[in-house]
């Protein structure tokens, strides 16, 4: 964990490129290599978590139990959530941070390159541990990704201990990644790059990193308490010994609510880079964007109990958490209006990154609105634990976080690979994803409002048609992601040569280096005007 900074002069710099062979990837301390590793790891997890979702949608294709046993279905819903949250979305953003933050602030590398290597390589270990539980006697985690006690303590499968250690490893990895991001942003900015000149992606990541440092230790704490309850006879969450299962929910959601912003804020930053580029206008309201992001981060700490309106918190508590939650709509609205104002009267073109970015703004807003519906405490009593909740958080996570990652990938792929991706296939990927995603998740609003509970393998006949539509959409969305894999591989292997700045409206230091970005960049800090 020493603060080693590559200190070679520019003359030496062209002499060494990446090492050869497999050990390059194991031993690398280069931010671009580590970024690439994170992104590939995240994509593997995305496909794995996605295949679990395919199992879920296949089982829900028709009412009745057809394909998997209910016990296995529970493991699929749990693992789908855990892998998508901790394995796909979070590492993808860390990968983007690794690749882009040094390029955006004119730094030669991350501030702590060796720690960077360690924080990546913890992840394969953590997920190997987690996934191995599926093959153990008694099965893997089956208590939902929120692992409420006592389901995850008293009634948990034996493998829960592996799950706990996997969470510990992921937490350590995230915390180290966050420390690295903060150290890089606060110490390695090129001279003249003041905080308020930083690209918004850097700003949102700085704030996200502070959120990570604040809440990942709390997650580590809550799984440690579970560990002690299970193995060391404590009673944090066991009423028999004087504990309280509701306490689990409070501690978990104290982590869990900021966590949902951890998964969306970096996407906000990327979208704030992409929309101005393809509107050929500077971002509208840069300063308000920064303050809005900081306000969202602050509010995320005081709204956690809106996940637990039905546990029986007092009326004053319900009101406080309801109003605080509704308040989040204000800074989020500022952001949405700023994006729309950026596009207003711009010279818009709709290349693939822009398509994903525009879809992000529209669909994320739909997810935001269903979030407002859920925030209203008396209405939440009706919606709680139904498919309406599933529809809501998939609308903020799929067209939010995932589309944000797709948009970023297409946007920076020419910089990473030196080739332009296939625009036709990119647009096809967008439209199939867009239709598939809406087909999957929009009907869930209806079945949820009609009362279909989440996390069940079977359902009442009245929900049959909508579920079949959801499943068809799900298969479509899932299969489409193989097209994305093909597009990325095709772009790495060849394609039209990308210039240093492939998008004519783009701003930022990352476009001042050639494409593909050389192995070492900004060994002498650039001039910031």
């Amino acid at each position, binding site marked *: *964990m020493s*603060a080693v*900074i590559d*200190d070679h002069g520019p003359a030496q710099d062209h002499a060494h490129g990446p090492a050869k062979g497999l050990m390059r990837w194991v031993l690398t301390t280069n931010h671009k290599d580590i970024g690439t590793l994170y992104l590939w790891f995240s994509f593997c997890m995305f496909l794995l978590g996605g295949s679990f979702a395919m199992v879920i949608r296949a089982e829900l294709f028709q009412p009745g139990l057809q394909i998997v046993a209910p016990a296995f279905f529970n493991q699929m819903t749990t693992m789908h959530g855990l892998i998508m949250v901790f394995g796909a979305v979070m590492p993808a953003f860390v990968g983007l941070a690794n690749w882009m933050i040094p390029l955006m602030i004119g730094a*030669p590398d991350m*501030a*702590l390159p060796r720690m960077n290597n360690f924080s990546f390589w913890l992840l394969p270990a953590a997920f190997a541990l987690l996934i191995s539980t599926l093959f153990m006697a008694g099965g893997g985690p089956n208590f939902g990704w929120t692992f409420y006690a006592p389901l995850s303590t008293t009634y948990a499968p034996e493998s829960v201990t592996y799950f706990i250690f996997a969470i510990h490893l992921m937490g350590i990895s995230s*915390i180290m990644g*966050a*420390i690295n991001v*903060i*150290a890089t942003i*606060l*110490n*390695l900015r090129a001279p003249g790059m003041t905080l308020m000149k930083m690209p918004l992606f850097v700003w949102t990541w700085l704030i996200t990193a502070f959120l990570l*440092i*604040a*809440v*990942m*230790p*709390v*997650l*580590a*704490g*809550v799984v440690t*308490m579970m560990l002690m309850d299970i193995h060391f*006879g404590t009673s*944090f969450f066991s*009423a*028999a*010994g*004087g504990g*309280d299962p*509701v*306490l689990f929910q*409070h*501690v978990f959601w*104290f982590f869990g609510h900021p966590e949902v912003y951890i998964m969306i804020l970096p996407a906000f930053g990327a979208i704030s880079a992409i929309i101005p580029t393809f509107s050929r206008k500077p971002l509208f309201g840069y300063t308000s964007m920064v303050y809005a992001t900081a306000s969202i981060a602050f509010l995320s700490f005081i709204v956690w109990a809106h996940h637990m309106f039905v546990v*029986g*918190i*007092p009326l004053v*508590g319900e009101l406080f958490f309801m109003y605080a939650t509704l308040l989040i709509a204000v800074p989020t609205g500022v952001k949405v209006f700023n994006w729309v104002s950026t596009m207003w009267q711009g010279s818009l073109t709709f290349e693939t990154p822009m398509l994903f970015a525009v879809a992000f703004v529209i669909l994320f807003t739909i997810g935001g609105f269903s979030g407002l519906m859920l925030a209203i405490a008396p209405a939440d009593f009706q919606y709680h634990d139904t498919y309406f909740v599933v529809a809501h958080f998939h609308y903020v996570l799929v067209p939010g976080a995932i589309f944000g990652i797709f948009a970023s990938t297409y946007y920076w792929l020419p910089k990473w690979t030196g080739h332009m991706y296939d625009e036709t296939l990119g647009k096809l990927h967008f439209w199939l994803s867009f239709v598939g995603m809406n087909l999957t998740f929009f009907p869930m609003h209806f079945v949820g409002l009609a009362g279909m509970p989440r996390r069940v393998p079977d359902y009442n006949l009245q929900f049959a048609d909508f579920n079949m539509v959801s499943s068809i959409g799900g298969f479509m969305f899932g299969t489409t992601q193989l097209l994305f894999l093909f597009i990325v591989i095709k772009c790495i292997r060849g394609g039209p040569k990308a210039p240093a700045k492939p998008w004519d409206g783009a701003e930022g230091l990352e476009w001042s280096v050639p494409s593909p970005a050389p192995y070492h960049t900004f060994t002498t*800090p650039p001039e910031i005007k």
Partner: protein
Amino acid sequence: MANSTAVKRLVLRLLLMVVVMFAFGFALVPIYDVMCKAFGINGKTAGQYEGEQVVDPTRQVRVQFLSTNAIDMVWEFYPKGDQLVVNPGAVNEMVFVVSNPTDHPMTAQAVPSISPAEAAQYFHKTECFCFTQQVLQPGQSLEMPMRFIVDRDMPKDVKHLTLAYTLFDITARHPPVAANAGKDETRLAR
């Protein structure tokens, strides 16, 4: 290039933040208990009540009694009556019956909860089996009195409250060797 002492200092501060937040996670446990007590939320009742109150003959409150066995608990456990209509300030009694139908001695702990939760701080127990643990020999049964006072200051809109007990088998954690109603005061005062 930034100097490495600045990076080191920053990293140390961030690590300190991590340690503080980890500790904060655990601090939430006592904070939660204190908040629940202070605001009388979550339906948790306080320990033994020592005070006395003057009876308010003008007001009546209906108190219902529920008994539930936690999973895997095989004892019989029930109150002798479903409900009582009481005057605030008066001392009332309800007898609960437990019996151990198994062929081995067992230890149990009853955990109370009051609904609506805001009434919990106005429900005073002067005597309760839930203050201690119960040890029953094979086949033994026991009648356990529970005496309580509903506070005169309880909000007027509460006309009806429910006291629910859940009985947990804690034989594994507290083997019934200490015989007879182990007075384990160190655990909890309910």
